[in-house]
Each structure stands twice: as C-alpha cells, then as structure tokens.
C-alpha cells in the first residue's frame, strides 16, 4: 500500500501545478486549437497551412467582435493515437472553443469520432477522404477543403477526354490514397479510359519504388496517375525520372506530387510535367490578390496550395464567428449550422458547403511549372474544369 502514498504525492504535485492554470481570465479570448503534423514527413505542408491560417486571422486584426483570437497549436505527429491525445489536451486542458487543422485523413477520422462524442466543433483543413463527411459525418465536424471525389473524379474524366486511354494508378495504401485514386479511376473509366494496373505501396513504409515503377513501365499504359505527398512524392518523382520514364510514361498527378515545397529536393524535375491543382497563385481574383499580398507581406513569399487551404480554413472559421457575434453558442452544433450557411469567395474560387458540412470545389486547374527569370518555378495555367460533387454516404441528418 505504501506505493499509494507515493502515487498520491505525485498526483498532488500535478494538481497544485495545474491549479494555477485553471484561473479564469476576465475577457477570455476565443481559443482555437490548431492541430497539424508540425514535425516529420508532413511538416512542410503543415507549415503552409499554419501560415495561411495566420493570414486569415490577421485579415481580421486577430479579433472577432472585439474578442481576441488565440491559436493554440498541437502536433498530432501524423498518428491517430497522438492526435486523440492532443485533441483531448486542447479540449480539456487548453479549453479551446473549437479545433481546426488536421492533415491526415487517419487522424481526421480518429478525432472526428472524438469531436462528435465531446460535441466539440472540429473544422478540418485537409483530410480529403470521402468517408469523413460521408460514412463518419457528424454535426460537429466540417471540412473547409474538399473531398477526394470532388477533386479527382472530374480529373479522371478530363484526362480520358484528352487522349489518354490507358493509365496505371499508383498511390499509398491508405484511405486518402484510395479515396483520391478511386475517384480518378471512376472518372477516368466513366470517361472511357481504362485503368490497366493498380499499384498500392504501404503508406510511409516504402522507400524504393523500383519494383512498382518497373511493373508500371511494363503495363503498356500511357500514363501513371499517382497520388503522393511529402517525402514519398519526392522519392517517386526522382525514381520515376531515374528509370527514364518521364517521356515514355509520364507521371501525372495532383499538386501534392509536384508540390512547390518539394522544389528544393526535386530541382529541375519540377519543370515539364502537367498536373492538376485546386489553386493557382497567379489567378487574378480579388480574394486571391488579397491573400497573395498579405502572405507576401507576412512571410516574404508566395502562397501555395497548402497555404491556401489553411487560409480557407481560417477564413471559414472567422466568417462563422463573425456571424455569431464572436460568441460560441451553447449548442455548439449551431456553429456548424452557421458555417454550413456560408458562401464566400476564396482564392481558389467560390466556397459552398454541402448538407454534410463539406466544402465543395468550384474549379480545378491544369498547370505546368516553368522557370521565371530568376530561375524560380512558376505554375503556368494550362486548362481548367469544374470540381465534382461529394460522394453520398452520410446517413445522419443535421
């Protein structure tokens, strides 16, 4: 039993230590928990999202209806278990009013279950897996980006209608990979193309794509359509080039494969391939010019896709809070209902939400990087098409 006394002593210390942090402030700021994988393989995209988010808050002077906005950051380490722990920390210790951010769909699924149980608004910044706002939909969870289907179904159709008849799809073997490439495949085959081979590599466990690329090059397809991000994207693009497949079997993908943030690692390999993206920093709309100007001012560089997604995330939250008069309603699902009613011009186009709280995609661009005079990569507009609707699947109504 003696150990109990030691245990209690230890706990007592913790209680005392935490008691000081409980003291309430008089004009409490609105606290937003921003959960992103700040370290590790998705650290770079996370930084972009975080900066975009900051720009959105700064646009409002960091205040809504006189209430200061406080951002509390948490690192989910790209791991659902850690995500859950950090979510609990944000909600229980930091007493945040809502949680934003989240990149990985796995973490998104894990924490959205928790948000639903805790009745805590969760505004997801990325997490494109279709299920999040379909099978796992919740009145407390919204997504300000778009679904995989919304992005890539029409991309499949686009390539099928631009002379591509056969394709290999290649991607990481996890929900986002399956969601995106599944959407592409449906669109591609609905448009008359044929996916001749599917190659799934274990997510974050694959280092060498030699076997996969060798297989793909022997499939006789016209293109490889792939979905990769971060370190995996860098490796795939480099190894694809190493095998001399750039002309023979182009690697087509989306803005995560040819992410500008991979420029350092990819170098010259960025220039040339066409890919699809949801955001083009050179687009001349008022919303975009505002973002670009402020982003340049704050971070001395141009925003890219991730920054734009972070901006949308922050902007949607700020617009909602503004509508609510800077007050989180007692019934927090009211927050989501309000957000669902928003329609606003984002840098990527008009944002509307569907019935299960997922933002829709208005436009998809086809682009190609070229070097500007300073040798910096600049995305060049090639074509555009509309985004598709989300997959159905949400059985709850809210």
């Amino acid at each position, binding site marked *: 039993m003696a*150990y109990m006394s030691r245990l209690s002593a230890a706990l007592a210390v913790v209680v005392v230590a935490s008691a000081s942090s409980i003291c309430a402030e008089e004009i409490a700021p609105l606290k937003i928990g921003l959960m992103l994988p700040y*370290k590790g393989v998705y650290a770079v995209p996370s930084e972009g999202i975080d900066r975009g988010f900051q720009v959105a808050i700064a646009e409002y002077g960091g205040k809504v209806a006189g209430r200061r906005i406080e951002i509390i950051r948490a690192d989910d380490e790209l791991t*659902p*278990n850690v995500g*859950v*722990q950090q979510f609990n920390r944000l909600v229980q210790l930091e007493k945040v009013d809502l949680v934003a951010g989240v990149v990985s769909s796995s973490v998104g699924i894990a924490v959205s279950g928790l948000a639903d149980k805790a009745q805590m608004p969760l505004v997801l910044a990325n997490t494109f897996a279709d299920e999040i706002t379909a099978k796992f939909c919740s009145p407390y969870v919204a997504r300000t980006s778009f679904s995989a289907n919304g992005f890539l179904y029409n991309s499949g159709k686009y390539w099928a209608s631009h002379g591509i008849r056969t394709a290999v799809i290649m991607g990481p*073997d996890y929900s986002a990979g399956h969601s995106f490439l599944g959407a592409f495949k449906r669109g591609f085959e609905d448009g008359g193309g044929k996916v001749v081979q599917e190659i799934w590599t*274990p997510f974050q466990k694959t280092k060498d794509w030699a076997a996969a690329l060798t297989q793909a090059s022997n499939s006789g397809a016209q293109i490889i359509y792939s979905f990769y991000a971060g370190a995996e994207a860098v490796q795939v693009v480099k190894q694809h080039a190493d095998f001399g497949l750039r002309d023979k079997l182009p690697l087509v993908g989306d803005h995560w494969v040819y992410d500008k943030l991979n420029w350092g690692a990819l170098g010259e390999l960025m220039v040339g391939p066409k890919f699809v993206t949801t955001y083009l920093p050179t687009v001349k709309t008022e919303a975009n010019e505002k973002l670009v100007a402020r982003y340049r001012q704050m971070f001395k560089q141009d925003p890219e896709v991730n920054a734009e997604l972070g901006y949308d995330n922050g902007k949607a939250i700020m617009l909602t809070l503004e509508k609510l008069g800077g007050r989180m309603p007692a019934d927090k699902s009211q927050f989501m209902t309000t957000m669902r009613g928003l329609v606003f011009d984002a840098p990527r186009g008009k944002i509307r939400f569907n019935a299960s709280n997922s933002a829709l995609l208005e436009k998809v661009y086809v682009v190609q990087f070229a070097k500007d005079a300073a040798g910096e990569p600049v995305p060049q507009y090639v074509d555009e098409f509309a985004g598709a609707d989300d997959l159905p699947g949400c059985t709850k109504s809210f």
Partner: protein
Amino acid sequence: MSTEATIVGAVSERAAADPVKQSQRVARAVIVAPVLMVLALPWISTPYLTILAIEIMIAGVFASGINLLVGTTGLVSLGQAMFLGLGGYGIGIGASVLGLPLWISVPATLALIGVLAVGIGAVCTRTRGVEFLLITLAFSQLFYGAAIKLRLTNGSDGMSGIPRPDLSFLGLNSDNPMVFYYYVLAVTVLAVAVVWRVVESPFGSVLAAIRENERRAVAMGYSVDRYKIGAFVLASIACGVAGILQAQYTYFINPDSMSWQLSGEGVLMVIIGGATAVTGPLIGAAVFVLVKQGLSVLTTEYMMFFGIFFMLVVAFFRGGIVGAVQSLFEKKS
C-alpha cells in the same frame, strides 16, 4: 516485492518513537489517503488531469504486463505492443465486423490472445537474451504488417468506432470522461492486482528464479520453458487488456498501436519505474506520460528532449525511480 517492505519498514521505524496509537493512525492515513485521492480524482481535479490519469492507468497496465516478462522473468521483449494492438483489433473487429457485444468480444479477444501467446511464446522462449528480444520484435512486425495489409483491419486507416462498455444499466454513460475514468480505474486495479498476485505466487517465485539463474532453476527440477511460456501468456493478456482500454479510450485502433517504438516505450516505462517492483510500472507509466505531455506542451522539439531523457534514465537510473527511492531509504536507515 521488497520495496513495500522497505518503505513500510522505514515509515514504521520513524513512527516507532511516537505512541502506538498515533503510529496506527499515521499508518491508516498512509493507506486511506491515496485510495481516497484516486477515487475522488475526477471530482477534485480538472478534466484534463482526469484524462491524463486515464492515459497513465492504461500505460500502467501495459507496463505491468511487460514488467512480468522484463522485470520478473528477465526476458526482454520488444514486441509486446503486438498484444496491445491485438486487444484493440479484437474488440474492433468484434464490434464492427462481427457485430458482437463487448461482453462476448472482450473475453473472446483475451482468450484468443492467450492462445496466440502460447504459440508465439513457445517459439520465442526457445531463445534467450538478445535473440528473444529480436524474435519478439519480428513477431510484432509480422502482426504490424498484417494489420496494414489486411482488409479486415482496414489497413493503415485503422478502425474507428470502437465501443466503450454500455453502463446504461447503472444509469451511466461511459462516453463521459468521468465515468470512463472509473471504468479504467476498476480494470486497472483488477489487472494490476492479478499481476501482483502472480508475482507473489509460487509460480511467480519460479519466474524470479529463472531471472536470477535459469540453470539453477532447471537443476531444482523446474521445467523452465513452461514457466516462461506461462509468463509470456499472462504478460500478453495484460497487454491485451491495456490495448482494449486504449482502443476504447480513443474509440480507435490502427497499426501504429503495434509498432516497435511503442514496445520500446513500454520497456522504457518499466525501466523508469524500476523493474523489480509491482509499483514500478505504474510509476514509470506516470512519469512517462507526464514527461511526454509536459515536453510537448513546453517545446515543439520534444522528440529531441525525450530521446535525451530516455538516455539519461538508462544511463543513470539503474533501478528506476522505485530503486532510487529504495536506496535512499536504505542509506537513511
């Protein structure tokens, strides 16, 4: 084992100067106060502390299981997370694929873990030392790979919607952190009591004999392989229990719960706490969870500091915290 004796001895020694009645009162307070403290925690502390306490208890059950192998029997396993994951997947598959209620899926999962542990233990305990460490690691990687690849387990995405116990017959909702705290507390007390009982039992003393000198245990007439397998099975079931709690706590299970890093962290909790005492794993788990949480609040570079913390513990805390406290008392007396 001997820790309690030492500390109780030290306490009673100090109390010896006082009148008998007072020392009894002190002793009673020493026992009652922490029990009350633990029981009342959700009421007297913050919700966040309650949640931390839940995490500590779950980690404590996991570490207790590992300690049965590492501390008691002297077999260092770097694969116990496989049973943690199996526990979570067991009830996950039970609920979402087979549609079983928890009162069936929990015993079935633990039984399955037991059976698997007999087989895996029989293979692993043929080796010793570093080979044992590596073969347990290999087995856990095998299950980890299977969890990623199998459709049944939903691959890298893992399974969500893991059910918590239905306590509505008590008028309680286990989604409430406070209610869940008492549920985890009950399971933890039960699991740790069982582990403690095993360590203190004749069977447990054979395990200690194996740790101290396996050849001697054989010469005494013990079929050490059976005892080692027995320890492996009991340890694995304890880890499975921790896995079930973990999955229920997060409503979620994915292959990361089987990673070798997690096994390593479990062993580290045992080392931090002190490998020979039943209390060691609980204290180790508490320190581990609190340090990790504390560091991640303080700095974004906590991985570096955590690694350094790790190394310092191994280099300077041979007997863990319990061992350090023990030797402190030994020096005083």
